[in-house]
């Protein structure tokens, strides 16, 4: 497999995952803003932009944080290199460049996503249409994942796609937590008002975890439980631990095929052992914010080691 191809498949996975996560994030922000007054809802939208890390870029072109401005910026603004539209175009360009590494089903799913999402985002998205557009983006991303899962040979191609997906997903979940971690801190949670319940739910909703969490916890919402769920739960497909597990198994599969490990395996082992030694109590003691920051940095190191070890670039 060409290094450039591995790179393309990896980024195709990342771009699609990011497009999907951005749409979840907007959905959570939108729901929250509906329950707020104008001022607090602007705060909410500000935090959404800050989660994806594009505050500077946003403020270059926008003076205020109204919902319609924010979601159009995140979905389709040409000034936003991380917009959903840019991600879908990036995924499709990557897929086209590595066309031979994909099955026909996968390529067609990516190509179709690019066509229908491009169509849906051709004009500014109005409030009445937002729900449909967000659902479409999630559905298309799932379609591609489903096509990958159902049609691709379990070879390096598949592993690099999965690795890209879980690197990105872990990063996204961590960023959501990092922006919202203060609402999960026990001291503030003590307030226990309706408003904070909405905040916690919003965090869960932005990773599609609200139903799973309620089911596991018989409906009771508590910040410590939410943090544990998002960081450590090995069953929830968007928790950091779940993402690490999947990175581990895909890297192990690569090591098996290549007959040896690479430096990425070593870096990942470092992150994993930190997780295995942690309970939610020790994490809160040492500082949630710090823990998340460290994860984001380590996750990036894993990605860099993979790019290097597997010769993504000339």
């Amino acid at each position: 497999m060409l290094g450039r191809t591995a790179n393309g498949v990896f980024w195709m996975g990342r771009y699609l995952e990011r497009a999907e996560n951005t749409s979840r994030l907007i959905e959570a922000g939108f729901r929250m803003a509906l329950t707020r007054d104008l001022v607090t809802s602007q705060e909410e939208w500000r935090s959404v932009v800050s989660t994806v890390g594009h505050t500077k870029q946003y403020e270059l072109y926008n003076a205020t944080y109204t919902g319609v401005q924010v979601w159009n910026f995140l979905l389709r603004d040409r000034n936003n290199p991380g917009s959903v539209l840019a991600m879908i175009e990036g995924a499709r360009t990557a897929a086209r460049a590595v066309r031979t590494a994909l099955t026909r089903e996968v390529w067609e799913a990516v190509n179709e996503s690019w066509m229908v999402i491009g169509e849906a985002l051709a004009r500014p998205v109005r409030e009445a249409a937002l729900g449909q557009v967000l659902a479409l983006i999630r559905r298309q991303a799932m379609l591609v994942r489903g096509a990958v899962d159902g049609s691709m040979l379990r070879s390096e191609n598949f592993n690099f796609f999965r690795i890209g997906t879980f690197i990105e997903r872990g990063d996204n979940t961590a960023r959501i937590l990092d922006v919202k971690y203060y609402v999960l801190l026990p001291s503030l949670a003590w307030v226990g008002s309706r408003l904070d319940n909405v905040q916690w739910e919003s965090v869960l909703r932005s990773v599609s975890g609200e139903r799973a969490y309620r089911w596991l916890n018989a409906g009771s919402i508590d910040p410590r439980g939410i943090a544990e769920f998002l960081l450590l739960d090995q069953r929830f497909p968007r928790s950091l631990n779940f993402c690490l597990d999947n990175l581990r198994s895909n890297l192990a599969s690569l090591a098996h095929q290549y007959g040896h490990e690479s430096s990425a395996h070593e870096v990942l082992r470092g992150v994993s052992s930190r997780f295995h030694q942690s309970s939610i109590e020790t994490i809160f003691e040492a500082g949630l914010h710090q823990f998340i920051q460290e994860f984001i940095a380590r996750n990036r190191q894993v990605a860099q080691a993979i790019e290097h070890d597997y010769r993504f670039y000339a």
Partner: protein
Amino acid sequence: MTDAPSCFDEMLAADGSVRAAYSDYSDWYHRQDPGLMRRKGQEAETFFRKTGITFNVYGDDAGEERLLPFDMIPRIITAGEWRKLVKGIEQRVRALNAFLHDIYHRQEIIRAGRVPESLISKNAAFLPQMMGMIPPGGVYTHIVGIDLVRTGPDEFMVLEDNARTPSGVSYMLENRETMMAMFPELFTAMDVRPVQDYPRRLAESLAACAPSCAGGNSDGRPVVAVLTPGIYNSAYFEHAFLADQMGAELVEGSDLRVVDGRVAMRTTRGFEPIDVLYRRVDDDYLDPLSFNPSSRLGVPGIMDIYRAGKITIANAPGTGIADDNAIYSFMPAIVEFYTGEKPLLANVPTWRCSEADSLAYVLDNLAELVVKEVHGSGGYGMLIGPTSSKKEITAFAAKLRARPDNYIAQPTLALSTVPILAKAGLAPRHVDLRPFVLVSPDGIQITPGGLTRVALKQGSLVVNSSQGGGTKDTWVLAD
């Protein structure tokens, strides 16, 4: 331009009766619901968009991808007609390879005075780097496209030879897939010769030309890769398609490097040598050390490795000298010189404007002629006399006088027509045909059929996709 009244329609005879090749199809067609046929046409377009069978058009918005319009009425050739074509094409392709070998060795044909020396040595397509070198397997043009036009029941003529990197074979294959998906019952009822094994034959044919050092990978087979200029190239879809169908790697210049005396690709495990490179990059861009120094599409040093016999490049560099428009007019003599036989396929009569008598004739008759640039392709930079205004003709005459060497002229041919499905039903449109030919030390293989290009505008004679042409599935009937 209006249709010449005498032009040959491949489906209908002058008295309105259906020709033998189309009789079964015509019966079937007239049993179909016209509304349903039109809906199938839309289905086909959606299918092409979804599968990404597109080409990029240069000069338009960057990266814009277009569909090559597809017409559902097949172009049908009988077994007998095809047999004759095959003989003529084989002869021509043998002559092309013999000519290339000769030009890059002793140049007997020049010594014999059959082709002028200046036409070779001053030609940009002639590569002195190829002198004295025998490509692995002895083959110069591994993949050839011979463009044919038809003017009568038994009159096929060669309009152009494509000996560099002929494209369009992916459309031949996808058109067939589409037709089989839309009209499976037709293929049950009629005995149409298959084209689908082209990629396998291409892979075998390329592997058969591998250099002697080949076979280093685990299963002992030669490593074949397709070299593409990248996703913005007009034929990128085809490059990816062929690599995919052959199970070969699709590589770009940036993936390749000379390592330990071999051309190697950067894989996730390190550099692995390539035995056969099916390159879809022009000669000029192939090696910045030997040709265009600013090229980033090629591989620095590949020509040294090639000359050392450590890689096969298909087609060989320098094959353009055989399909240049200026050489074209000499093809009858070239065929005769190397095969000792009369050409089975005729050339279109051609005036070389470099010759004073011809130039005078061409200038006097511009309104009736087609004038082409000697080194041009794709329907660009040509004059079609009958459809041009007086002003255009005067302007072109000035260009012609200034650089007569740069042009050849041909009569405006009454190209045959095949019906397309137009809004009001079947309507005749002009067509040409590009059969695809594979050459290896094991022999010459011609896929039955090829790419039929069709001018979709009524009366138009220009079939190039860059000029609004479309394509059809081409059927060769079995005996």
